[in-house]
């Protein structure tokens, strides 16, 4: 069953068809929420909210990219969570450190030292992302972590192409500066200023 048929059946109230779409996109949505919120529990909540909202609103989906549409809902859900977190100081972005094993293993013979370095680098990247302003963080995650094209990022963020390019440039530069300040802690092969 192709995506369009699943969407069509979901619009008529077929939860099982919608769940097939959920299975297809849940990893993407969860990882966006995880990078945006830096907290696995909040990311779970945001992901569940995303799919509930998507099911309720699927009647309003007027075609185009379902992936962009659902990621847009996820981005809005993350913004809501961050707004609440700021208001009640639930999450301090300075202390956001992800526990996940972020960087893929280079090969099967990775030494314990390399493993530790890889985890450290993943921690730096997540910390760096957490230090970006919200709009830049979203664009950097969508473009560089999730590999979306500029046009898709523009759809997800509801911004113009020019805004996306500008935010991406500023976000990358800012993240690069953050990593450079901690370069001595990076593994040599990952150092930016060789």
């Amino acid at each position, binding site marked *: 069953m192709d995506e369009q048929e699943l969407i069509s059946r979901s619009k*008529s*109230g*077929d*939860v*099982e068809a*919608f*769940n097939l779409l*959920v*299975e297809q996109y*849940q*990893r*993407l*949505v*969860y*990882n966006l929420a*995880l*990078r945006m919120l830096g907290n*696995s529990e909040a990311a*779970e909540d945001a*992901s*569940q909210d*995303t*799919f*509930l909202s998507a*099911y*309720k609103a699927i009647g309003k989906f007027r075609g185009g990219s379902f992936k962009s549409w659902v990621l847009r809902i996820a981005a809005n859900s993350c913004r809501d969570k961050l707004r609440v977190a700021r208001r009640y100081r639930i999450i301090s972005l300075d202390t956001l450190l992800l526990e*996940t*094993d*972020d*960087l*893929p293993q280079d090969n099967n013979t990775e030494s314990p030292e390399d493993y530790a370095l890889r985890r450290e*680098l*993943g921690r730096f*990247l*997540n910390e760096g992302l957490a230090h970006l302003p919200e709009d830049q963080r979203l664009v*950097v995650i969508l*473009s*560089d*972590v999730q*590999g979306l094209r*500029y046009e898709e990022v523009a759809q997800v963020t509801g911004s113009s192409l020019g805004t996306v*390019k500008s935010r*991406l*440039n500023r976000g*990358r*530069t800012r*993240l*690069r*500066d953050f*990593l*450079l300040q901690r370069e001595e802690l990076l593994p040599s092969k*990952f150092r*930016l*200023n*060789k």
Partner: protein
Amino acid sequence: MFRGKGEPMCRKVRGMLSEYIDNSLSSENKSLVERHIETCEACSKELESLRMTVRLLGRVSQSPVPRSFTLPVPEPRRESVFVPSGLRLPRPATAVAVIAIGPTSLRWLRPATAIVAIVLVVLLMGDFLHAFENNAGVNSGRGDATYVQLAPSYAATEQQTMVTVPGIMGQMSLATAKAVGYTEYAMVPSSPVSQPITQPIPSVLGDEGPTGAQVIVRGEAGVGWPLRQIEIGLGAAVFVLLALIIFARRQRTKGVGAG
């Protein structure tokens, strides 16, 4: 971070480095960047550091989902289904026959109830104001008018006193019984609702009566159609429709809320 000497050109080129890395610059701007970084070491380092940053971000793996985010599928028995708040699920097939009045029925139940209630109110108001009374005596419903011809010289008590005569169905006034020649009759107790209303007799009685004859219409003045039955029917309809609305709302609540 990396300071170049040719500041204006460096600023311009650095603004395009991100797009250059993504290979989305026009050929003209791409050449401009390439020519500049060949001669500007600072911008060249800037480009390399940005490229490494993008490469590092590309190595960030997608974490596995800790649990599935699929929505609960409704089972045929509605009461055993957990439905998250705000989620409207399709009605199970087995429940369709049982629940003919579903949440969507509210669309027509509400206006139908309003229309019936308005009609009922209009009828009740008209009834109270006697707007529907038909004093001509043409009665197809509950009328109990009796036509009696009387001479104006008859005593008022004889006109108003009703009697029954053996062998004759119904009642007649004492004056009529005497005029016809009956000698045996039984008095009928007078009723408060049976006060006669007199009015000029219609021409249909014509030659049969003496001049100045009058018609006596006993009881309430007639109405040309069964008003009371219609009012009762409409009242019952309003109650039934209200009950259906409540039922439909409960169905919707069950369908939407947590089961």
